[in-house]
């Protein structure tokens, strides 16, 4: 009997040693962009790479269902699945709002091992509304403005009550900025001057998502290690992520081709068109709802002339920009509601087209002879600078002189805020991809980011009504009317909708992209012996 026990123990020992020796460690996925994160505080405005870090660190209540689209997983706009919550329901209330009830998962912990509860989710909403970050500005859009609208029915059930019926409510619940934050840790690291621990979370993660931040070097490298307490940890096929800054896009392209990095972001379109022929990489591109636009600031005297604005709208070489600046990695934007967005009206969008005769006629009607205008572009955006040159050339043909000013990003932001640039190229992407949300921010009266300073009461009324309407037919009709006003008022020349593009090495799979347009790498795996 004793021998038998020894034999069994020996077999167990040998099998443990065998499995330790032969068990393959999960591969670490390396992503590279022009920079990494500047800071990772979830409610502070930060670099795109910083949003990518927090995307992998915070677990929202629900996420989009991912659908395979030729090797790339794309988030569905219609189907959402409980992630931070194991089940949820959203019902209309008698007082014209929604009631969302979310049952929080029991089998999930933060990286420090503490159980995630409904309190941690409520804390994050409270922090959004009362804290010094910018996220609180977004919540009224779904009818939340008071912390009392978020309540707990028990330790593991979160209840959210809105005072309007916004079609965006469910989509908002997928946003990383409403994921659970470790309330105990946050409270332990707060003080009177900083009651929400913003200072503490500048460089520390407190989420319950698939990873936690193990190393944070701003602008250089961020190392994310798997959170063992993540509810779906055993399904994650990789052993962590490294986000590495490789500032030069040519070097990034070479590194992804050679397999030293797995995923490369921020590759310029010109380089993408070359990489497409490289058998070592996969270039993914899908239409996005983002927009790059030429804005005309209506507080500046000359730009108040609607015929001049119309002349500019019809003198812009839209197709040339897509072909020669974006190398085909873009589609016509078609207006403030872009061509891949719900409620987009093709008949109106198509009217944003180059027609020099029309442009000359409008310029004549404007009564302005030989206008000379300043066009500002950002130093960090090469495509905008190239576009500015083509626009300058095209506008010259109808008699409008343009002086291009390439400005440091900080100066550019300052000057558009102070209404100092009559023309400038800017861009936008709306999380949630909702047309009314986009119109509300970019083109209604008094909005801070309505840099063209367009203001039309009828337009505002249409947008506000559409934003809180669930009826799709009505939404389409309201959106069309608003788009028509936007076109006829010549608020912008919408230049293009850039594709979401990302390059991966041929040996990796499982990349997904959702509402936030951020590359989600948690389901990425790497083939061994591939390169």
């Amino acid at each position: 009997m004793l021998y038998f026990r020894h034999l069994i123990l020996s077999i167990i020992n040998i099998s443990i040693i065998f499995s330790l020796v032969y068990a393959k460690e999960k591969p670490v996925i390396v992503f590279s962009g022009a920079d990494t994160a500047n800071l990772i505080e979830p409610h502070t405005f930060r670099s795109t790479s910083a949003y990518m870090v927090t995307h992998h660190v915070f677990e929202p209540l629900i996420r989009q269902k991912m659908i395979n689209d030729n090797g790339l997983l794309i988030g569905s706009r219609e189907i959402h699945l409980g992630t931070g919550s194991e089940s949820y329901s959203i019902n209309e209330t008698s007082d014209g709002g929604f009631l969302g009830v979310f049952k929080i998962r029991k089998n999930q912990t933060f990286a420090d091992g503490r159980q995630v509860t409904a309190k941690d989710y409520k804390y994050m909403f409270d922090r959004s509304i009362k804290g010094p970050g910018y996220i609180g500005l977004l919540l009224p859009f779904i009818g939340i403005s008071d912390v009392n609208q978020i309540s707990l029915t028990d330790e593991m059930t979160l209840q959210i009550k809105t005072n309007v019926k916004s079609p965006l409510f469910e989509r908002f619940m997928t946003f990383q900025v409403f994921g659970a934050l470790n309330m105990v840790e946050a409270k332990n690291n707060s003080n009177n001057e900083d009651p929400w621990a913003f200072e503490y979370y500048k460089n520390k993660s407190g989420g319950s998502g698939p990873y936690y931040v193990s190393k944070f070097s701003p602008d250089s490298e961020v190392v994310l290690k798997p959170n063992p307490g993540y509810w779906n940890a055993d399904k994650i096929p990789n052993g962590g992520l490294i986000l590495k800054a490789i500032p030069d896009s040519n070097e990034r392209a070479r590194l992804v081709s050679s397999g030293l990095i797995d995923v490369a972001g921020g590759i310029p379109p010109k380089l993408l068109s070359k990489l497409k022929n490289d058998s070592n990489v996969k270039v993914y591109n899908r239409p996005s709802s983002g927009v790059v636009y030429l804005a005309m600031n209506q507080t500046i005297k000359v730009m108040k002339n609607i015929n001049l604005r119309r002349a500019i709208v019809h003198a812009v070489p839209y197709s040339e920009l897509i072909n020669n600046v974006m190398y085909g990695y873009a589609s016509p934007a078609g207006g403030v509601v872009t061509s891949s967005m719900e409620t987009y009206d093709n008949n109106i969008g198509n009217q944003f087209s180059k027609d020099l005769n029309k442009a000359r006629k409008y310029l004549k009607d404007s009564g302005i002879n030989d206008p000379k205008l300043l066009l500002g572009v950002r130093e960090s955006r090469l495509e905008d600078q190239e576009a500015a040159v083509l626009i300058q050339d095209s506008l010259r043909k109808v008699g409008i002189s343009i002086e291009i000013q390439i400005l440091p990003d900080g100066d550019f932001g300052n000057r558009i805020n102070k209404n100092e640039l009559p023309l400038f190229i800017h861009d936008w992407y709306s999380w949630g991809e909702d047309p009314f949300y986009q119109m509300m921010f970019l083109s209604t009266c008094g909005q801070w980011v309505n840099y063209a300073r367009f203001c039309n009461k009828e337009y505002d009324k249409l947008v506000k009504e559409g934003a809180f309407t669930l009826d799709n037919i009505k939404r389409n009709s309201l959106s069309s009317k608003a788009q028509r006003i936007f076109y006829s008022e010549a608020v912008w020349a919408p230049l293009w909708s850039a594709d979401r593009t990302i390059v991966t090495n041929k040996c990796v799979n499982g990349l997904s992209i959702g509402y936030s347009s951020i590359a989600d790498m948690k389901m990425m795996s790497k083939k061994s012996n591939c390169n």
Partner: protein
Amino acid sequence: MWRYLFKRSIISIFTIIGIIIVVFFIVRILPGDPALVRAGPYASEKKIKEIRVKYGLNDPLLDQFKDYFIKLMHFDLGTSIRTGGKVTDELMERLPASLELAFYGVIFSLILGVPLGILGSAFKDSWIDWFVRVFAVFGSSMTFFWLGLMLTFFLFFKFQWFPGPVGRLSIGRLPPDEITSFFTFDALLQGDFNLLIESFHYLSLPVITIGFVLSAPIIKIVRSAMIDSLESEYVRTAKAVSIPYIQILFSYCFRNALLPITTTVGIVFGYMLGGNIIVELIFSWPGIGRYAYDAIRVNDIEALQGFVIIVGILYVILNVIIDLTYAWIDPRIRLEGITK
């Protein structure tokens, strides 16, 4: 010597104070609003105002300077508006990377430049001299970015002889425990020879890029200083009394040529102290050059002025070291200091 050092130190302190004053006011002339950068595009005017108050951007300029100067006396260079971190910490974290790169870049340029300069002078007007002169012209007309890109394209991407431009070590590799913060020194001190080799491996391409370009002025100055010495009367006398040519070259001429060489090395090293932004960008080198570039781009004024002040202080220290080296090389200088 001590008196000379004391005199130089006093002058240096006033120079540093001058640098601080000039930098503080020049940085504030730059266009742009740092509060806007911090707040981001979604922020309301109220939010931007709050940030201005928090960072003291609304205070009178003289009050801002007074606060800044007091903080500076406590080695506090302020807070980066972009990262929210302490500028002193962020610069100190990145400075060793730039210094290590500059150090090896200058060493490599000396290894390349001094022998070539001596060769050119020793074989003046021969084909060797011609080759040295062409090499120097080639080096002077070369830009860092072009050479860096070519080296990575051929030596990393095509032939895979050198590692990719991913920074100081391979991706995911842990750095050595911090002693000097120079990875090569720390790896050596800890006896980690694999890490030492890897550090040198990753230093190689940026060092070659820097060294090749910087060797050009060194070649020119060594060659011309050596030719001057070789044509002097004491060399003619030495030759007349049959002192071996090698001894004349190194013991007499090179020693006399050391002063202009030291000046050039000082200028070259000083130039590299600020971190070579282009080289750091191409090789993803996490140094202060890249930090300054990001600070300029987004109008991060405290980060920018912190960078300029640190570089200014280093430059002043470097100048003191060069002056002391002069005095060591040429006793007339230290005697002059004493007699005056």
